[in-house]
Structures are given as structure tokens and as C-alpha cells.
């Protein structure tokens, strides 16, 4: 069976700077894959290319048998790739419920006129959205916050809401940008359980960027390592932990050893 997602030789140049250089990846349906690397390695840039924020200088993206290179972010989202952001980007002044409802907006087929006139078709769609949003919030344990403003939520709940909002678009592939950032070890464990749970419930495939190695090694089935925009290793957590190139990338070259 063909993989769910494939990136072929992605290159991204900003002016003279090559941020991503010939990166190829392949993700099977149902996998949880990690993308790690030192700061500035180009991980978030890869996410931005996949989700259509940047158009790659060269290379192609195949998702679900379809070439999605150069599509706009909203088109990519409609096809079933959702994401979260490194620095949480919630709609802070909207309520938790509304944040999730926006994720469902792309499933509305009635035009704006029907919405204004509240035709039966639109009313039915809206009802469905509201029900599903409430249901989703219950599933991720945020139902108590429903009517709170998203910006007023505690940090951990905000991270969770961002994931819930992404789930509302009904993705097949979920991209998480440092989901465990700022969490203590206990919260990290909770997050891992949460991710496994939603993978099962929503039939997801997950690609995640993470610096917290316990989370990465604990949950990822396969890991890609990026350094200076180039892939330097790929493999299971055990293989990655032993890979000398990876160790070197993270710790730098020890001069005393080299001499």
C-alpha cells in the first residue's frame, strides 16, 4: 500500500539561505512519527511547507495519492492535514466552543446567503456543527471551559484546545509543533496518553516536532532527524539514540576528542 504522505526532495530557499535541503519523508497510515533536530534546523519550515504556508523552491508533496505541492493552507486543511503551532495560535478573544466550531466551518456547504436567511439546509448544518463541537470538547476533556475565552485558559488547556481545534477539521494527518513545550514531566506523560488516545479514536496519523526526548522516544514509532536543513538520520527511537551523527548534531563536535 502506498504511504499516506510523502515528501520528495523538498528544498526551501529564502534569498541566499537554504533553510531546507532535499528533505524526503514518507509516513504510513496510522504511524506516529517524530521530527527532531537542534534549534534552527528547519523543522517548523518543513511544517510550513507541508501545510502550504510556504511554497517549496523545489520538490513535491504527495498526500493520499494526490499532489498537494503549492496548494494554499486552507486547501491543504480541507484535504485532511491539520496542524498546531509552536507558539500557540488560538483565537484568543473567541470562546473555546467557537474556536472548535471554526474548525468545522469548512464542512459548511450552504453559501453565506443561506446562512443569513437561515434556510433549513443551513440550520441543519449549523446544528450538526454545534453538536459535534460539544462532543469533541467532551472527548478531549475541555467541556467545562466551553464558554470561556480561549485566551483565558490555563496553558496546558490551551495546548489541548489547539489540538482539539485541529481535530475539528477532521484530519487524516495531524502535525504537532512542539506539543509538550512548557510542560512538566507529568504533563508530558499525560500528553503521550492523550495523543495515543486520539490516534485511536480519530483514526489519525501524527507527525510531531518535539524537543522533549522522553516524549519523542516514548511515543514515536519512527524518527527523522534534521540538522542545518538536511536529514541526517531516520529510524526507530533505539536506532536514533545510538546514531553517532545525531549525537554529534546535538552535542556538537568535542574539540578535545578531535585533537
Amino acid at each position: 500500500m502506498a504511504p499516506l504522505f510523502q515528501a520528495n526532495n523538498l528544498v526551501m530557499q529564502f534569498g541566499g539561505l537554504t533553510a531546507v535541503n532535499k528533505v524526503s519523508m514518507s509516513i504510513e497510515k496510522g504511524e506516529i512519527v517524530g521530527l527532531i533536530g537542534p534549534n534552527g534546523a528547519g523543522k517548523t519550515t518543513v511544517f510550513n511547507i507541508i501545510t502550504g504556508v510556504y511554497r517549496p523552491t523545489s520538490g513535491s508533496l504527495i498526500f493520499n495519492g494526490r499532489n498537494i505541492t503549492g496548494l494554499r493552507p486552507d486547501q491543504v486543511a480541507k484535504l485532511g492535514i491539520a496542524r498546531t503551532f509552536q507558539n500557540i495560535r488560538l483565537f484568543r478573544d473567541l470562546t473555546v466552543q467557537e474556536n472548535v466550531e471554526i474548525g468545522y466551518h469548512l464542512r459548511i456547504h450552504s453559501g453565506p446567503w443561506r446562512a443569513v436567511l437561515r434556510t433549513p439546509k443551513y440550520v441543519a448544518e449549523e446544528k450538526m456543527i454545534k453538536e459535534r463541537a460539544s462532543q469533541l470538547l467532551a472527548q478531549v476533556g475541555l467541556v467545562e471551559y466551553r464558554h470561556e475565552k480561549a485566551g483565558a485558559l490555563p496553558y496546558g488547556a490551551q495546548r489541548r484546545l489547539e489540538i482539539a481545534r485541529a481535530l475539528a477539521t477532521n484530519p487524516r494527518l495531524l502535525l504537532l509543533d512542539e506539543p509538550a513545550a512548557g510542560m512538566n514531566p507529568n504533563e508530558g506523560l499525560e500528553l503521550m496518553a492523550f495523543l495515543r488516545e486520539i490516534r485511536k479514536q480519530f483514526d489519525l496519523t501524527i507527525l510531531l516536532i518535539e524537543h522533549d526526548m522522553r516524549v519523542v522516544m516514548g511515543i514515536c514509532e519512527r524518527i527523522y532527524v534534521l540538522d542545518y536543513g538536511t536529514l541526517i538520520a531516520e529510524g526507530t527511537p533505539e536506532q536514533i539514540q545510538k546514531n553517532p551523527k545525531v549525537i554529534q548534531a546535538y552535542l556538537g563536535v568535542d574539540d578535545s576528542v578531535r585533537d
Partner: protein
Amino acid sequence: MTLTEFLQHMANGVSLGSLYALIAIGYTMVYGILRLINFAHGDIFMIAAYVAFFGIGIFSLPWWVSFILAVVITAFIGALIERAGYRPLRNSPRISVLISAIGISFLLENLGLVLFGGRPKAFYRPPVFAQVFLVKGVAVQVLTIYIPLVTIVLLACLLYLVHKTKTGMAMRACSRDFETARLMAINVDRIVSVTFVVGSALAAVGGIMWSLKFPQIHPLMGIFPGLKCFIAAVLGGIGNITGAVIGGFILGILEIMLVAFFPALSGYRDAFAFVILILILLFRPTGILGETMAEKV
């Protein structure tokens, strides 16, 4: 069109362009540091003209004293506007600051109407600037030569300030990153004030020379030059001083040439700049010399 006619239009374009350039510098400096379209900048230009006018007309000062005074007072007013109207909104959404700028612009224009009256006033043109000399039978005003010269000298001083002095370095740091500049112990508020002083002083010089060239002043005289100079700044690449000057020259020359070559379109002269704006924003939003400022995702 004969060659001499063309050269005359060119000279006119260059002198109009250098006026645009002087005002555009203020826009570009403020935008570079605060990311704000200082709507009131065009009105600053008007204030300078009136201060000079009253200095000569009411206080009977020699014209040069009056001009210098106008530049100093205008620079001070520029800094005052920033202090009162923009600084309290430093951490507010950009839209709020923009609204404040629009409000201040309207305030200055209408204060002008109330204090100076709505009727245009004749601006005194000192004899030195009124001279005309002949080049190959074509009459050329000395002003047409003086204006670009003054602009070039001021530009040189400004570039020295920005690139060779400590204050200039601080300015460049602020335009890169406010927070980091603050962490580097740069007094950001002082730098912003300096920026407004310098920008307003240049606009004042522009306003005085404008009034010498078109010797009729009016409280609303700053609106259109103001908008056009912002466009010149965008054309050159906003945030870039040399770019603003280049943009000013290009806009001035294009405008004069449009009217010279297509007299039928002269009614559209004021609309022309906006058409240019749309074209740049569509095809080269960074302007001629600008760098990309992509939003971080």
C-alpha cells in the same frame, strides 16, 4: 516636444521629486521603527509653511531666521505628536495607532482651518530664490536648482547620522527588533523621539521649499503631498532611506512627465500616484530597495 522642453520638464520633475523625497524620508523612518503610517506627517509639512509665513509676515523676522525657526518648531511639534498621540499606544494593536494617527492628522488640518483661516495665503519668496536665469534661451528658476541641491546635502547628513553615529546605530537596531534593542540598553523612547524630530525637520524643509516653489499656502496643503510621499516611500522600499529618496524622484519625474506627454490626462494627476501604489503592492510589495519582511509563523 523639443529637447529643451523635455529638459525643462525633467528639471521640474527632479525638483518636485526632491521635495517628495524629503517628505518621504520621514514616512520611511517612522514606518521602519514603529511600523506606523504616520498620517499626520503631511500636516507637519503644512505647519512648517505657516510658521515660516508668520515669522516673516507678523514678527518681521529675516526670512532665513524665520525658516530656521520653522524647522526647529516643526521638529518639536513632530516629537510632541509622537509623545502624546502614539507613545501611549505603543503596546496596542497597530490599527489603534493608525486610527490615532488619522485623528491627529484631522486635528491638525482643522486646527489649521480654525487658526489660520480657510483662505490660501501668499507665501513670501525672498529675492534670492526668485531669480531666473537663462540656459540656451530657456528660463530656469534658481529654485529648480537649489531644491535638489538642498535635498542631496540633507540626505548626505542623514545617511551619516544613520550609518556613522551611535544614535544611528540604535535607530537601525530599533527598526530590526524593538525588544532586543531595549535589552541592549538602548533607550527606545529617546530613539523614537529622535526619529520624529529628524523626520519632521526634513518635512519642514520640504514644506518651506514647497511654499517657495508654489507660493500659496493653505491648511489642507499637506494632504496630497503627504499621501504621495508615503507612496514614494513604498515605491522605494519602506524603511529604507535611500529608497525613499529614489522613490520620491521617480514619482516626481513620472508625474511631471505624465502631464507633459499626455495633457489630456492632467485631471488624473492626483490619482496617478495611487495607481502606481497598487501596481507596486501587487508586483513588488517590497519596493525597489526593500527587503522581505515575512511574518513569522
